């Protein structure tokens, strides 16, 4: 999977590394901004209030 991704990336080595780094950063931000908050709410509801 990742080997195939590496093969289809264009350009010389430095460009491929740059594209991959940018992609990793974008994915990390998408995860932190949208996926993780939703996951957090679904998985770890830690109640702190007193309720009947």
């Amino acid at each position, binding site marked *: *999977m*990742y080997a195939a991704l590496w093969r289809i990336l264009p350009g010389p080595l430095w460009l491929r590394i740059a594209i991959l780094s940018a992609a990793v950063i974008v994915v*990390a931000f998408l*995860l*932190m901004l949208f996926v*993780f908050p939703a*996951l*957090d*709410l679904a998985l*770890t*509801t*830690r*109640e*702190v*209030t*007193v*309720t*009947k």
Partner: protein
Amino acid sequence: MTSQRRRSSEQLLTRVIGIAGELLITFGVIVLFFLAWQLWINNAVVANEQKTLTKELQESWATPTDSAAPTPSASQDFGIPPAFAGAGDGNKFATLYIPRLGQNSGRVVANSVDLPLVLNHGFYGHYPESQWPGQPGNFALAIHRTNWGSPFGDANKLQIGDKLFVETKDGYYTYAFRNYEYVLPTSVNVILPVPGGNRAPGDQSLMTITTCNPLLGDAERLIVYSVLESWRPRSAGPPAEIAAEVNGKAS
């Protein structure tokens, strides 16, 4: 012919297993990243947001002060604390500082205990059915113990008499820590005007903060009780204990 077909099917199997393995590794890395986000990254982000919100709220309260007027001394008594007028549902109306919990303990108080909307953004949530600062009765709040930018991890290390400061648009209410209680999540009597019973509060003003216990769990609630001691109007400036943080000089 048959051996060739076997070889190609073996190659296919190898590729499928390879892709499955890479997906699993990717999933594992994302799970670790999620844990890091929960424990550190989100904490820092929310704490920073709270710092900004505290500042914004303060700027919205700022009134032009007469610089020629004599600055009241730190120990001046300003009499009986006036009751806070109240706030609408979900509104941000105060900031609570607890110096014992560190230099950046200030968190905004919002009038709601909604988990996703208020508490998960690092706010103290005010139980809307409870009283207001300065009113006879119980000013009851909730906050996360850990994560979500909470400064409350060390909440069980308060010492009797430790000061808790509630800043509103009117001024600073000073509460003194009185005691802890460890209760079940259903013990709603801790947020009654007089915790524990159906009695009239008289002129006593309490602040109750509920949080989860044990650390990283929510099987019980840790209750932090404090008693209203004194009051300073906004024009008199912040109490010395929190002046650095209020004036934005805390690191």
